[in-house]
Protein backbone atom coordinates (compact mmCIF):
# COMPACT_ATOMS: atom_id res chain seq x y z
CA UNK A 1 0.00 0.00 0.00
CA UNK A 2 2.70 2.41 1.11
CA UNK A 3 6.34 1.90 0.31
CA UNK A 4 9.35 4.10 1.10
CA UNK A 5 12.49 3.43 -0.93
CA UNK A 6 15.65 5.19 0.27
CA UNK A 7 13.73 8.36 1.00
CA UNK A 8 15.51 11.46 2.25
CA UNK A 9 13.99 14.81 3.02
CA UNK A 10 16.13 17.83 3.48
CA UNK A 11 14.59 21.21 4.25
CA UNK A 12 16.05 24.42 2.91
CA UNK A 13 18.84 25.39 5.25
CA UNK A 14 20.30 21.91 5.29
CA UNK A 15 18.19 20.31 8.01
CA UNK A 16 17.96 16.58 7.35
CA UNK A 17 14.48 15.59 8.50
CA UNK A 18 14.62 12.08 7.02
CA UNK A 19 17.67 10.13 6.00
CA UNK A 20 17.52 7.11 3.72
CA UNK A 21 14.22 5.70 4.95
CA UNK A 22 12.95 2.39 3.57
CA UNK A 23 9.94 0.44 4.76
CA UNK A 24 6.72 -1.02 3.53
CA UNK A 25 3.20 -0.96 4.89
CA UNK A 26 0.88 -3.60 3.45
CA UNK A 27 -2.77 -3.20 2.62
CA UNK A 28 -4.88 -3.49 5.77
CA UNK A 29 -1.85 -3.23 8.03
CA UNK A 30 -1.64 -1.06 11.11
CA UNK A 31 1.58 0.42 12.43
CA UNK A 32 2.84 3.01 14.86
CA UNK A 33 5.58 5.46 14.14
CA UNK A 34 7.43 6.51 17.22
CA UNK A 35 10.49 8.43 18.28
CA UNK A 36 11.42 11.61 20.04
CA UNK A 37 9.93 14.83 18.82
CA UNK A 38 11.98 16.08 15.92
CA UNK A 39 12.82 12.55 14.84
CA UNK A 40 10.95 13.07 11.57
CA UNK A 41 7.56 11.44 12.29
CA UNK A 42 5.48 14.33 10.97
CA UNK A 43 7.68 14.73 7.93
CA UNK A 44 7.25 11.06 7.07
CA UNK A 45 3.45 11.35 7.22
CA UNK A 46 3.54 14.54 5.17
CA UNK A 47 5.48 12.80 2.42
CA UNK A 48 2.72 10.21 2.02
CA UNK A 49 -0.09 12.77 1.70
CA UNK A 50 2.19 14.90 -0.52
CA UNK A 51 2.18 17.82 1.86
CA UNK A 52 5.91 17.66 1.23
CA UNK A 53 7.89 16.13 -1.60
CA UNK A 54 10.92 13.91 -0.95
CA UNK A 55 14.37 15.32 -1.73
CA UNK A 56 15.63 11.88 -2.72
CA UNK A 57 14.19 8.38 -3.08
CA UNK A 58 10.67 7.26 -3.86
CA UNK A 59 7.43 7.14 -1.96
CA UNK A 60 5.00 4.69 -3.54
CA UNK A 61 1.31 4.79 -2.79
CA UNK A 62 -0.67 1.89 -4.26
CA UNK A 63 2.34 1.22 -6.45
CA UNK A 64 2.55 4.76 -7.82
CA UNK A 65 5.43 7.11 -7.24
CA UNK A 66 3.75 10.07 -5.55
CA UNK A 67 6.80 12.26 -6.09
CA UNK A 68 6.13 12.09 -9.83
CA UNK A 69 2.45 12.94 -9.48
CA UNK A 70 1.28 15.96 -11.46
CA UNK A 71 0.00 18.87 -9.41
CA UNK A 72 -3.57 18.43 -10.51
CA UNK A 73 -3.50 14.76 -9.53
CA UNK A 74 -2.61 15.53 -5.91
CA UNK A 75 -6.20 16.21 -4.73
CA UNK A 76 -7.29 12.76 -5.92
CA UNK A 77 -4.42 11.13 -4.01
CA UNK A 78 -5.40 13.05 -0.87
CA UNK A 79 -8.97 11.83 -1.16
CA UNK A 80 -7.69 8.30 -0.75
CA UNK A 81 -5.85 9.22 2.46
CA UNK A 82 -7.55 10.36 5.64
CA UNK A 83 -5.22 12.54 7.70
CA UNK A 84 -5.66 13.42 11.37
CA UNK A 85 -3.55 16.35 12.47
CA UNK A 86 -2.06 17.06 15.84
CA UNK A 87 -3.43 20.60 15.70
CA UNK A 88 -6.78 19.32 14.39
CA UNK A 89 -6.90 21.74 11.41
CA UNK A 90 -10.56 22.52 12.02
CA UNK A 91 -12.36 25.48 10.46
CA UNK A 92 -13.30 27.44 13.54
CA UNK A 93 -16.05 29.45 11.86
CA UNK A 94 -17.83 26.36 10.55
CA UNK A 95 -20.00 24.02 12.60
CA UNK A 96 -18.81 20.55 13.51
CA UNK A 97 -21.24 19.14 10.96
CA UNK A 98 -19.79 21.24 8.11
CA UNK A 99 -16.23 20.46 9.13
CA UNK A 100 -16.88 16.74 8.95
CA UNK A 101 -18.91 17.11 5.74
CA UNK A 102 -16.15 18.97 3.88
CA UNK A 103 -14.58 15.95 2.10
CA UNK A 104 -18.01 14.83 0.90
CA UNK A 105 -18.94 18.32 -0.31
CA UNK A 106 -15.71 18.39 -2.27
CA UNK A 107 -16.61 15.04 -3.80
CA UNK A 108 -20.07 16.33 -4.74
CA UNK A 109 -22.12 13.91 -2.65
CA UNK A 110 -25.84 14.70 -2.39
CA UNK A 111 -26.93 16.52 0.73
CA UNK A 112 -29.10 13.65 1.93
CA UNK A 113 -26.15 11.28 1.80
CA UNK A 114 -23.89 13.85 3.45
CA UNK A 115 -26.32 14.24 6.33
CA UNK A 116 -26.63 10.51 6.84
CA UNK A 117 -22.91 9.82 6.64
CA UNK A 118 -21.82 12.75 8.81
CA UNK A 119 -24.27 11.62 11.50
CA UNK A 120 -22.93 8.08 11.27
CA UNK A 121 -19.32 9.26 11.53
CA UNK A 122 -20.07 11.58 14.46
CA UNK A 123 -21.93 8.78 16.14
CA UNK A 124 -18.89 6.55 15.73
CA UNK A 125 -16.66 9.04 17.57
CA UNK A 126 -19.38 9.76 20.13
CA UNK A 127 -20.06 13.38 19.18
CA UNK A 128 -23.48 13.19 17.58
CA UNK A 129 -24.88 15.72 20.07
CA UNK A 130 -22.18 18.27 19.17
CA UNK A 131 -22.87 18.59 15.44
CA UNK A 132 -24.23 22.14 15.71
CA UNK A 133 -21.32 23.42 17.82
CA UNK A 134 -18.27 25.29 16.60
CA UNK A 135 -14.85 23.64 17.12
CA UNK A 136 -13.55 26.25 19.61
CA UNK A 137 -16.46 25.32 21.91
CA UNK A 138 -15.16 21.74 22.14
CA UNK A 139 -12.39 20.29 24.28
CA UNK A 140 -9.09 19.23 22.70
CA UNK A 141 -10.11 15.58 22.77
CA UNK A 142 -13.46 16.32 21.20
CA UNK A 143 -11.82 18.34 18.45
CA UNK A 144 -9.44 15.47 17.85
CA UNK A 145 -12.40 13.15 17.43
CA UNK A 146 -14.07 15.57 15.02
CA UNK A 147 -10.82 15.35 13.08
CA UNK A 148 -11.11 11.57 13.01
CA UNK A 149 -14.70 11.78 11.83
CA UNK A 150 -13.59 14.07 9.00
CA UNK A 151 -10.71 11.75 8.11
CA UNK A 152 -12.89 8.65 7.82
CA UNK A 153 -16.05 10.18 6.35
CA UNK A 154 -15.03 9.58 2.73
CA UNK A 155 -13.99 6.00 3.56
CA UNK A 156 -10.36 6.35 2.45
CA UNK A 157 -8.33 3.11 2.29
CA UNK A 158 -5.50 4.71 4.28
CA UNK A 159 -5.61 6.64 7.53
CA UNK A 160 -2.67 8.69 8.80
CA UNK A 161 -2.66 10.24 12.26
CA UNK A 162 -0.11 12.62 13.72
CA UNK A 163 -0.07 12.41 17.55
CA UNK A 164 -3.81 11.81 17.78
CA UNK A 165 -3.63 11.31 21.54
CA UNK A 166 -1.27 14.24 22.04
CA UNK A 167 -3.37 16.08 24.59
CA UNK A 168 -5.85 13.48 25.78
CA UNK A 169 -6.09 11.79 29.15
CA UNK A 170 -5.24 8.06 29.23
CA UNK A 171 -8.84 6.85 29.26
CA UNK A 172 -9.72 8.93 26.20
CA UNK A 173 -6.50 7.89 24.48
CA UNK A 174 -7.32 4.23 24.93
CA UNK A 175 -10.83 4.83 23.61
CA UNK A 176 -9.43 6.61 20.59
CA UNK A 177 -7.01 3.77 19.87
CA UNK A 178 -9.94 1.37 20.01
CA UNK A 179 -11.55 3.40 17.27
CA UNK A 180 -8.40 3.05 15.16
CA UNK A 181 -8.27 -0.69 15.80
CA UNK A 182 -11.87 -1.04 14.70
CA UNK A 183 -11.17 0.90 11.55
CA UNK A 184 -8.16 -1.29 10.87
CA UNK A 185 -10.27 -4.40 11.37
CA UNK A 186 -12.70 -3.10 8.76
CA UNK A 187 -9.81 -3.09 6.26
CA UNK A 188 -8.32 0.39 6.54
CA UNK A 189 -4.53 0.70 6.47
CA UNK A 190 -3.53 2.77 9.50
CA UNK A 191 -0.29 4.57 10.30
CA UNK A 192 -0.12 6.50 13.56
CA UNK A 193 2.70 8.74 14.72
CA UNK A 194 2.81 8.80 18.50
CA UNK A 195 5.27 9.03 21.34
CA UNK A 196 2.88 7.42 23.83
CA UNK A 197 5.01 4.27 24.22
CA UNK A 198 2.90 2.79 27.03
CA UNK A 199 -0.20 2.81 24.90
CA UNK A 200 1.59 1.51 21.82
CA UNK A 201 3.07 -1.43 23.70
CA UNK A 202 -0.31 -2.39 25.05
CA UNK A 203 -1.85 -2.58 21.60
CA UNK A 204 0.75 -5.00 20.28
CA UNK A 205 0.91 -3.65 16.75
CA UNK A 206 3.87 -3.10 14.49
CA UNK A 207 6.10 -0.23 15.60
CA UNK A 208 8.56 1.74 13.50
CA UNK A 209 11.07 3.64 15.60
CA UNK A 210 12.56 6.79 14.15
CA UNK A 211 15.62 8.49 15.49
CA UNK A 212 17.28 11.48 13.91
CA UNK A 213 15.65 10.84 10.56
CA UNK A 214 16.48 7.12 10.35
CA UNK A 215 14.47 4.01 11.09
CA UNK A 216 16.37 2.38 13.94
CA UNK A 217 13.88 -0.37 14.75
CA UNK A 218 10.93 -2.13 13.11
CA UNK A 219 9.19 -4.27 15.71
CA UNK A 220 6.34 -6.73 15.23
CA UNK A 221 6.20 -6.73 11.49
CA UNK A 222 3.40 -9.02 10.40
CA UNK A 223 3.86 -11.53 7.61
CA UNK A 224 1.25 -9.79 5.53
CA UNK A 225 -2.28 -8.52 5.64
CA UNK A 226 -4.59 -10.73 7.65
CA UNK A 227 -1.97 -12.78 9.46
CA UNK A 228 -2.35 -12.14 13.14
CA UNK A 229 1.08 -13.04 14.55
CA UNK A 230 2.93 -10.38 16.43
CA UNK A 231 5.98 -10.46 18.64
CA UNK A 232 6.14 -6.91 19.83
Amino acid at each position, binding site marked *: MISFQNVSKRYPGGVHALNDISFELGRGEMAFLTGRSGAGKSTLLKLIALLERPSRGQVLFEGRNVGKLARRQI*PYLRRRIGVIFQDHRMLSDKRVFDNVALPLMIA*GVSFGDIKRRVRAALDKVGLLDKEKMYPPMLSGGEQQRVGIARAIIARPPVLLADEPTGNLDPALSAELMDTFLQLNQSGVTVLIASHDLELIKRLGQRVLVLDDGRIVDDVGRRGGPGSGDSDG
Partner: protein
Amino acid sequence: MARARRTLRETGTTGVRAWTRRHAFSLLSSLGSLARYPLASLMTVAVVAFAIAMPLALHLALDNIERAAKQWERLDTLSVFLEIGIDQPGVDRLTSRLSTWPAVLAVDPISPQQGLDELSRQLGLEPVDDLLADNPLPWVLEVTLAAGTDRAALIQRLQANERVDSVLVDLRWLERLDAMTDVLGQLAWLLAVLLAAGVAVVIGNTIRLDVQNRREEIEVMALVGATAAFIRRPFLYSGLWYGLLGGLLAWAMIAAGLMALAEPVARLGQTYGEPVRLLGPAPAIVVAAVGGSALFGLLGAWLAVSQHLRRIDP
Protein backbone atom coordinates in the same frame (compact mmCIF):
# COMPACT_ATOMS: atom_id res chain seq x y z
CA MET B 1 -14.14 -4.51 -8.67
CA ALA B 2 -17.91 -4.17 -8.75
CA ARG B 3 -17.78 -2.98 -5.20
CA ALA B 4 -15.12 -0.41 -6.00
CA ARG B 5 -17.20 0.96 -8.81
CA ARG B 6 -20.21 1.21 -6.58
CA THR B 7 -18.23 3.08 -3.94
CA LEU B 8 -17.10 5.56 -6.54
CA ARG B 9 -20.65 6.20 -7.56
CA GLU B 10 -21.69 6.46 -3.95
CA THR B 11 -19.13 9.11 -3.20
CA GLY B 12 -20.45 10.92 -6.24
CA THR B 13 -17.17 12.15 -7.67
CA THR B 14 -18.36 11.78 -11.24
CA GLY B 15 -21.36 12.76 -13.30
CA VAL B 16 -23.35 15.87 -13.98
CA ARG B 17 -25.21 15.74 -10.68
CA ALA B 18 -22.04 15.69 -8.62
CA TRP B 19 -20.75 18.58 -10.74
CA THR B 20 -23.97 20.49 -10.10
CA ARG B 21 -23.75 19.81 -6.38
CA ARG B 22 -20.17 21.04 -6.24
CA HIS B 23 -21.20 24.22 -8.06
CA ALA B 24 -24.16 24.70 -5.74
CA PHE B 25 -21.79 24.37 -2.80
CA SER B 26 -19.42 26.98 -4.26
CA LEU B 27 -22.30 29.31 -5.04
CA LEU B 28 -23.72 29.11 -1.52
CA SER B 29 -20.26 29.44 -0.06
CA SER B 30 -19.64 32.63 -2.07
CA LEU B 31 -22.96 34.14 -1.01
CA GLY B 32 -22.16 33.22 2.57
CA SER B 33 -18.84 35.03 2.47
CA LEU B 34 -20.55 38.10 0.98
CA ALA B 35 -23.14 38.06 3.74
CA ARG B 36 -20.55 37.50 6.48
CA TYR B 37 -19.17 41.02 6.07
CA PRO B 38 -22.17 42.94 4.75
CA LEU B 39 -20.68 46.41 5.21
CA ALA B 40 -17.41 45.58 3.45
CA SER B 41 -19.32 43.84 0.65
CA LEU B 42 -21.65 46.80 0.30
CA MET B 43 -18.72 49.19 0.04
CA THR B 44 -17.12 47.16 -2.72
CA VAL B 45 -20.44 46.99 -4.55
CA ALA B 46 -20.86 50.76 -4.15
CA VAL B 47 -17.39 51.51 -5.55
CA VAL B 48 -18.13 49.27 -8.52
CA ALA B 49 -21.50 50.98 -8.97
CA PHE B 50 -19.91 54.45 -9.04
CA ALA B 51 -17.33 53.28 -11.54
CA ILE B 52 -20.04 51.90 -13.82
CA ALA B 53 -22.48 54.77 -13.31
CA MET B 54 -20.00 57.50 -14.29
CA PRO B 55 -19.42 56.58 -17.95
CA LEU B 56 -23.04 55.46 -18.22
CA ALA B 57 -24.25 58.88 -17.03
CA LEU B 58 -21.90 60.64 -19.43
CA HIS B 59 -23.12 58.47 -22.27
CA LEU B 60 -26.73 59.25 -21.39
CA ALA B 61 -26.09 62.98 -21.17
CA LEU B 62 -24.43 62.98 -24.61
CA ASP B 63 -27.19 60.84 -26.04
CA ASN B 64 -29.80 63.34 -24.88
CA ILE B 65 -27.80 66.36 -26.05
CA GLU B 66 -27.32 64.81 -29.48
CA ARG B 67 -31.01 64.15 -29.74
CA ALA B 68 -31.81 67.73 -28.73
CA ALA B 69 -29.24 69.06 -31.22
CA LYS B 70 -31.04 67.21 -34.01
CA GLN B 71 -34.18 69.12 -33.12
CA TRP B 72 -32.32 72.43 -33.05
CA GLU B 73 -30.90 71.70 -36.47
CA ARG B 74 -34.41 71.35 -37.80
CA LEU B 75 -35.35 74.69 -36.31
CA ASP B 76 -32.47 76.29 -38.09
CA THR B 77 -33.00 78.64 -40.99
CA LEU B 78 -31.12 79.61 -44.10
CA SER B 79 -30.51 83.23 -44.92
CA VAL B 80 -30.95 83.73 -48.67
CA PHE B 81 -29.45 87.05 -49.84
CA LEU B 82 -31.08 88.35 -52.99
CA GLU B 83 -29.54 90.51 -55.70
CA ILE B 84 -29.35 94.22 -55.14
CA GLY B 85 -31.97 95.96 -57.20
CA ILE B 86 -34.74 93.40 -56.96
CA ASP B 87 -38.09 95.05 -56.43
CA GLN B 88 -40.91 94.26 -54.02
CA PRO B 89 -43.08 92.33 -56.54
CA GLY B 90 -40.03 90.30 -57.53
CA VAL B 91 -39.44 89.41 -53.90
CA ASP B 92 -43.08 88.45 -53.44
CA ARG B 93 -43.00 86.20 -56.49
CA LEU B 94 -39.86 84.44 -55.31
CA THR B 95 -41.29 84.08 -51.80
CA SER B 96 -44.48 82.43 -52.96
CA ARG B 97 -42.56 80.18 -55.34
CA LEU B 98 -40.18 78.98 -52.68
CA SER B 99 -43.12 78.39 -50.32
CA THR B 100 -44.41 75.72 -52.68
CA TRP B 101 -41.21 73.67 -52.41
CA PRO B 102 -41.81 70.63 -50.22
CA ALA B 103 -38.45 71.08 -48.52
CA VAL B 104 -39.40 74.54 -47.35
CA LEU B 105 -41.56 75.02 -44.29
CA ALA B 106 -41.77 78.83 -44.30
CA VAL B 107 -40.29 81.83 -46.07
CA ASP B 108 -39.98 85.11 -44.26
CA PRO B 109 -38.86 88.06 -46.37
CA ILE B 110 -36.86 90.80 -44.64
CA SER B 111 -36.67 94.12 -46.46
CA PRO B 112 -33.45 96.16 -46.52
CA GLN B 113 -35.11 98.65 -44.20
CA GLN B 114 -36.01 95.99 -41.66
CA GLY B 115 -32.51 94.63 -41.89
CA LEU B 116 -31.01 98.02 -41.26
CA ASP B 117 -33.29 98.61 -38.28
CA GLU B 118 -32.33 95.31 -36.78
CA LEU B 119 -28.66 95.97 -37.40
CA SER B 120 -28.72 99.36 -35.72
CA ARG B 121 -30.65 97.90 -32.80
CA GLN B 122 -28.09 95.11 -32.42
CA LEU B 123 -25.20 97.56 -32.61
CA GLY B 124 -26.93 99.91 -30.19
CA LEU B 125 -26.53 102.85 -32.56
CA GLU B 126 -28.76 105.61 -33.60
CA PRO B 127 -30.76 104.66 -36.66
CA VAL B 128 -28.01 103.96 -39.16
CA ASP B 129 -29.99 105.17 -42.13
CA ASP B 130 -29.40 108.68 -40.86
CA LEU B 131 -25.72 108.15 -41.47
CA LEU B 132 -26.02 106.36 -44.75
CA ALA B 133 -27.24 108.06 -47.83
CA ASP B 134 -28.27 104.80 -49.39
CA ASN B 135 -29.29 101.53 -47.76
CA PRO B 136 -26.58 99.04 -48.78
CA LEU B 137 -28.47 95.97 -47.53
CA PRO B 138 -30.14 93.49 -49.89
CA TRP B 139 -33.43 91.76 -49.48
CA VAL B 140 -33.09 88.61 -47.36
CA LEU B 141 -35.38 85.57 -47.27
CA GLU B 142 -35.32 83.63 -44.03
CA VAL B 143 -36.07 80.08 -45.17
CA THR B 144 -37.15 77.54 -42.57
CA LEU B 145 -36.51 73.97 -43.64
CA ALA B 146 -38.84 71.04 -43.32
CA ALA B 147 -37.69 68.10 -41.22
CA GLY B 148 -35.31 65.68 -42.87
CA THR B 149 -34.33 68.05 -45.64
CA ASP B 150 -31.11 67.49 -47.55
CA ARG B 151 -29.66 70.86 -46.69
CA ALA B 152 -26.80 70.82 -49.22
CA ALA B 153 -29.10 69.97 -52.15
CA LEU B 154 -31.50 72.73 -51.22
CA ILE B 155 -28.71 75.27 -50.92
CA GLN B 156 -27.50 74.30 -54.39
CA ARG B 157 -30.96 74.66 -55.81
CA LEU B 158 -31.38 78.09 -54.20
CA GLN B 159 -28.04 79.26 -55.50
CA ALA B 160 -29.02 78.20 -59.01
CA ASN B 161 -31.71 80.87 -58.96
CA GLU B 162 -30.48 83.99 -60.81
CA ARG B 163 -32.08 86.37 -58.33
CA VAL B 164 -30.16 84.80 -55.43
CA ASP B 165 -26.83 86.35 -54.60
CA SER B 166 -25.70 84.00 -51.86
CA VAL B 167 -26.99 81.59 -49.21
CA LEU B 168 -25.72 81.88 -45.68
CA VAL B 169 -25.87 78.93 -43.36
CA ASP B 170 -25.11 79.69 -39.74
CA LEU B 171 -24.49 76.22 -38.54
CA ARG B 172 -21.14 76.80 -36.99
CA TRP B 173 -22.34 76.57 -33.39
CA LEU B 174 -24.13 73.35 -34.19
CA GLU B 175 -21.00 71.98 -35.78
CA ARG B 176 -19.09 72.96 -32.68
CA LEU B 177 -21.63 71.23 -30.49
CA ASP B 178 -21.37 68.17 -32.70
CA ALA B 179 -17.60 68.17 -32.42
CA MET B 180 -17.82 68.67 -28.69
CA THR B 181 -20.21 65.79 -28.19
CA ASP B 182 -17.90 63.71 -30.35
CA VAL B 183 -14.98 64.55 -28.07
CA LEU B 184 -17.04 63.85 -24.98
CA GLY B 185 -18.29 60.64 -26.55
CA GLN B 186 -14.71 59.49 -27.04
CA LEU B 187 -14.02 60.54 -23.47
CA ALA B 188 -16.94 58.43 -22.29
CA TRP B 189 -15.45 55.42 -24.02
CA LEU B 190 -12.03 56.10 -22.59
CA LEU B 191 -13.57 56.52 -19.16
CA ALA B 192 -15.54 53.32 -19.58
CA VAL B 193 -12.39 51.37 -20.43
CA LEU B 194 -10.44 52.88 -17.53
CA LEU B 195 -13.21 52.34 -15.04
CA ALA B 196 -13.84 48.80 -16.27
CA ALA B 197 -10.20 48.10 -15.50
CA GLY B 198 -10.82 49.86 -12.17
CA VAL B 199 -13.73 47.52 -11.46
CA ALA B 200 -11.49 44.52 -12.11
CA VAL B 201 -8.79 45.94 -9.83
CA VAL B 202 -11.17 46.86 -7.00
CA ILE B 203 -12.87 43.48 -7.07
CA GLY B 204 -9.55 41.70 -7.50
CA ASN B 205 -8.22 43.47 -4.43
CA THR B 206 -11.31 42.59 -2.40
CA ILE B 207 -10.97 38.96 -3.43
CA ARG B 208 -7.27 39.04 -2.60
CA LEU B 209 -8.05 40.14 0.95
CA ASP B 210 -10.74 37.48 1.13
CA VAL B 211 -8.24 34.81 0.04
CA GLN B 212 -5.81 36.05 2.69
CA ASN B 213 -8.45 35.95 5.41
CA ARG B 214 -9.49 32.46 4.46
CA ARG B 215 -6.00 31.09 4.02
CA GLU B 216 -6.56 28.49 6.74
CA GLU B 217 -9.78 27.33 5.15
CA ILE B 218 -8.07 27.04 1.77
CA GLU B 219 -5.27 24.97 3.26
CA VAL B 220 -7.67 22.64 5.02
CA MET B 221 -9.71 22.21 1.85
CA ALA B 222 -6.56 21.33 -0.05
CA LEU B 223 -5.60 18.86 2.70
CA VAL B 224 -8.83 16.93 2.38
CA GLY B 225 -8.53 16.70 -1.39
CA ALA B 226 -10.18 19.77 -2.89
CA THR B 227 -9.01 20.49 -6.43
CA ALA B 228 -7.62 23.91 -7.29
CA ALA B 229 -10.74 24.56 -9.35
CA PHE B 230 -12.96 23.77 -6.38
CA ILE B 231 -10.98 26.10 -4.12
CA ARG B 232 -11.00 28.84 -6.73
CA ARG B 233 -14.67 28.65 -7.57
CA PRO B 234 -16.29 30.38 -4.55
CA PHE B 235 -13.96 33.34 -5.05
CA LEU B 236 -14.84 33.55 -8.73
CA TYR B 237 -18.51 33.53 -7.82
CA SER B 238 -17.85 36.31 -5.29
CA GLY B 239 -16.21 38.40 -8.01
CA LEU B 240 -19.17 37.77 -10.27
CA TRP B 241 -21.60 38.85 -7.55
CA TYR B 242 -19.66 42.03 -6.76
CA GLY B 243 -19.66 42.97 -10.45
CA LEU B 244 -23.28 42.04 -11.03
CA LEU B 245 -24.58 43.79 -7.91
CA GLY B 246 -22.40 46.83 -8.65
CA GLY B 247 -23.77 46.98 -12.20
CA LEU B 248 -27.35 46.70 -10.99
CA LEU B 249 -26.77 49.37 -8.35
CA ALA B 250 -25.27 51.63 -11.04
CA TRP B 251 -28.40 51.16 -13.11
CA ALA B 252 -30.57 51.97 -10.10
CA MET B 253 -28.53 55.13 -9.47
CA ILE B 254 -28.95 56.20 -13.11
CA ALA B 255 -32.68 55.51 -12.95
CA ALA B 256 -32.96 57.58 -9.75
CA GLY B 257 -30.93 60.38 -11.35
CA LEU B 258 -33.20 60.40 -14.40
CA MET B 259 -36.26 60.65 -12.16
CA ALA B 260 -34.74 63.52 -10.21
CA LEU B 261 -33.85 65.39 -13.41
CA ALA B 262 -37.13 64.78 -15.24
CA GLU B 263 -38.91 67.73 -13.63
CA PRO B 264 -36.24 70.44 -14.13
CA VAL B 265 -35.59 69.26 -17.70
CA ALA B 266 -39.29 69.48 -18.51
CA ARG B 267 -39.31 73.02 -17.13
CA LEU B 268 -36.27 73.89 -19.25
CA GLY B 269 -38.10 72.55 -22.28
CA GLN B 270 -41.09 74.71 -21.55
CA THR B 271 -38.98 77.85 -21.73
CA TYR B 272 -38.11 76.84 -25.31
CA GLY B 273 -41.76 76.19 -25.95
CA GLU B 274 -41.41 72.54 -26.75
CA PRO B 275 -41.64 69.35 -24.75
CA VAL B 276 -38.26 67.88 -23.77
CA ARG B 277 -38.04 64.46 -22.21
CA LEU B 278 -34.93 62.74 -20.86
CA LEU B 279 -34.44 59.35 -22.41
CA GLY B 280 -33.13 56.49 -20.28
CA PRO B 281 -30.46 54.06 -21.45
CA ALA B 282 -31.32 51.62 -24.20
CA PRO B 283 -31.87 48.04 -22.95
CA ALA B 284 -28.78 46.92 -24.85
CA ILE B 285 -26.67 49.51 -23.02
CA VAL B 286 -28.04 48.41 -19.63
CA VAL B 287 -27.33 44.77 -20.44
CA ALA B 288 -23.84 45.66 -21.66
CA ALA B 289 -23.07 47.75 -18.55
CA VAL B 290 -24.38 45.23 -16.01
CA GLY B 291 -23.04 42.22 -17.91
CA GLY B 292 -19.71 43.92 -18.51
CA SER B 293 -19.45 44.80 -14.84
CA ALA B 294 -20.09 41.16 -13.88
CA LEU B 295 -17.57 39.99 -16.44
CA PHE B 296 -14.86 42.37 -15.24
CA GLY B 297 -15.62 41.33 -11.66
CA LEU B 298 -15.07 37.73 -12.67
CA LEU B 299 -11.87 38.68 -14.47
CA GLY B 300 -10.51 40.58 -11.47
CA ALA B 301 -11.36 37.71 -9.14
CA TRP B 302 -9.74 35.21 -11.47
CA LEU B 303 -6.52 37.19 -11.67
CA ALA B 304 -6.34 37.73 -7.92
CA VAL B 305 -7.18 34.15 -7.01
CA SER B 306 -4.78 32.52 -9.47
CA GLN B 307 -1.99 34.83 -8.33
CA HIS B 308 -2.66 34.27 -4.69
CA LEU B 309 -3.39 30.56 -4.62
CA ARG B 310 -0.11 29.94 -6.37
CA ARG B 311 1.62 31.80 -3.57
CA ILE B 312 -0.20 29.87 -0.83
CA ASP B 313 0.60 26.67 -2.71
CA PRO B 314 -1.69 24.32 -0.88
